[in-house]
């Protein structure tokens, strides 16, 4: 197991290096921050001073070298706009985004698996058909539009839930989150549901497909032939087998959940990383964009690693030699 994790970590570092090249090169080709940041009335002296200050007068290769060296020291540059370290700004916003993403994931799993398994067990029933039709809607409706509809319905028409911002936070066990307060939860519910909808649909479809495949297997029939109750057949024999693809997808898609949260955060004015990156793109705040992308890459790579490890826990057949 240790060598497996080491190999994977090494591969991850290579991925990070390549990504840093792509991100840095890509971002440097977009726009000129000088035009954005400097008062158009400023004279050439002033412009030169700012360019020097931001290191924009150096060759691109040198800029990249300093970027890498600084990145290793945890310094991904200073925001042109806020004048603060980019990493610090992003990390400040990270808990809000993580909270939103995790809560969405929680919703997707808690509702998606039972609905999907049910639809798989009774594929012909009306309820199952409704669930499947719903999942197609969840897939095909654009997130921002659903978000606006949710706000119109639940906040404007019914007035049940607040439409924008993050609610009160409280700290328990060293975790500060809005899920610990009622106000926080009421603020969280709509954006989380909005973000969860797409994942919920894929979890439903995966769980259904898995159930339909597994239920036909001989080992399910054999379990029934042992006299095991139908509840246990579904909860243990079916569920444990369908969890393999579901965990893979959930893990890998968690990254995209964070990435997708930019849309939801913008619609619901959720003070997370996603909103920050959108604002930074408008302002061509290059260090923040680079830092954000690097953090997303790190998250993706880490998630991949975790999924691989989880996968081997769930399915004993993929366990690497020397482990069992």
């Amino acid at each position, binding site marked *: 197991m240790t060598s497996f994790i080491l190999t994977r970590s090494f591969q991850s570092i290579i991925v990070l290096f390549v990504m840093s090249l792509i991100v840095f090169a890509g971002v440097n080709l977009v726009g000129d921050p000088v035009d954005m940041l400097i008062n158009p009335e400023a004279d050439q002296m002033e412009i030169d001073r700012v360019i020097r200050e931001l290191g924009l007068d150096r060759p691109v290769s040198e800029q990249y070298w300093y970027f890498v060296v600084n990145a290793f020291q945890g310094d991904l540059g200073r925001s042109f706009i806020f004048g603060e370290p980019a990493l610090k700004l992003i990390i400040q916003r990270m808990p809000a985004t993580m909270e939103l993403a995790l809560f969405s994931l929680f919703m997707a799993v808690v509702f998606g698996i039972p609905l999907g398994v049910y639809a798989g067990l009774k594929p012909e029933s009306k309820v199952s058909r409704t669930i499947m039709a719903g999942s197609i809607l969840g897939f095909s409706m654009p997130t921002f539009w659903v978000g606006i509809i949710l706000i119109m319905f639940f906040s404007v028409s019914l007035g049940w839930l607040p439409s924008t911002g993050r609610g009160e936070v409280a700290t328990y066990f060293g975790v500060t989150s809005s899920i610990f307060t009622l106000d926080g939860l009421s603020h969280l519910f709509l954006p989380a549901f909005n973000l969860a909808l797409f994942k919920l649909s894929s979890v439903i479809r995966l769980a259904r497909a898995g159930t339909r495949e597994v239920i036909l*297997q*001989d*080992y*399910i*029939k*054999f*379990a*029934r*032939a*042992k*006299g*095991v*109750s*139908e509840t*246990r057949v579904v909860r*243990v*024999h079916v569920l*444990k*087998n369908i969890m*393999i693809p579901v965990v893979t997808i959930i893990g890998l898609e968690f990254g995209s959940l964070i990435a997708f949260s930019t849309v939801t955060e913008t619609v619901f004015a959720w003070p997370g990383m996603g909103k920050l990156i959108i604002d930074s793109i408008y302002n061509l705040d290059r260090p923040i964009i680079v830092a954000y992308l690097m953090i997303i890459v790190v998250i993706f790579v880490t998630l991949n690693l975790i999924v691989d490890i989880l996968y081997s826990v*769930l*399915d*004993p*057949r993929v366990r690497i030699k020397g482990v*069992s």
Partner: protein
Amino acid sequence: MSKALDPILKISNLQTHFFTKAGVLKAVDGVSFEIGAGEIVGLVGESGSGKSITGFSIIGLVDAPGKIVGGDISFKGQNLNQLSNEQMQHYRGNRIAMIFQDPMMTLNPVLRIETQMIEAIQAHDDSIAHEDARIRARDALGLVGISSADERLRAYPHQFSGGMRQRVSIAIAMLNRPDLIIADEPTTALDVTIQGQVISEMQKLCQETKTALLWITHDLAVVSGIADRICVMYAGRVVEQGSIESTILNPMHPYTRGLMGSVPSQNQRGKPLQQIDGMVPSMLNLPNGCAFQNRCRRVNDTCLTKQPDIMHLADGRQVRCINLPEEYKV
């Protein structure tokens, strides 16, 4: 040999039909036979003859679109056909156990052997402690010849070979000391040497525990070595049944004769192997009259129009053919 005893399983006129889009498929159509306590009955037939469906009908696990539409399955006086699924669960794995054909597929790949054995015990005994159930599971593994059973309980199915997995399935089937085990081609997927071991293991266990065995197979050689009686099925019906000695030595139905002729034997070295001409008719479109008519050498006009009834012969044998040799006619 067991006629004197009360049969523990008595199937009469069982009909299991599949309602497919192409029409009603009469997979099992009027099957009747009995199994006495401790008796081993071989249920023989080609693929698609309805022998496995008969087995699944007994244990109440016929998959949709299949349905038992008629007949009685009387197990120790209780008609299983009338029980709800929950009531049936009490019998499954407890009084009637089943072993499947492919040992690679019958054990859940993501659960430990331990889990899969203990749940079979706890399903029928709420009060048993986990630790006691584990001891019983371990002993059962020992009985079927698996060494270091304690360690093996912690293993997953993929860590066993095919033969070992089938032993595990047998151990699971024997866990609750059932009265009847339905073995659906349990040795078909195994090597010949392993096959022999598994057969003798089963024979020994059934003798010791007085468990009746319904051995479903297409392999006459296997069945002649283990069974007391034999039922031959063709196109959803039993065409011949009787004691193993008389049926194997002197098969009466033309189909049984054909089957016997198709078995390679050392006594007939060099001679061309006999085979049954033609093909099994489509189960969706069986001919009027005898289902075997298109492959039969004794066929006459009556066979083409009239479904043959079961003839009861003097030695307790039953044959579904109207053209028996003269000396056997009742």
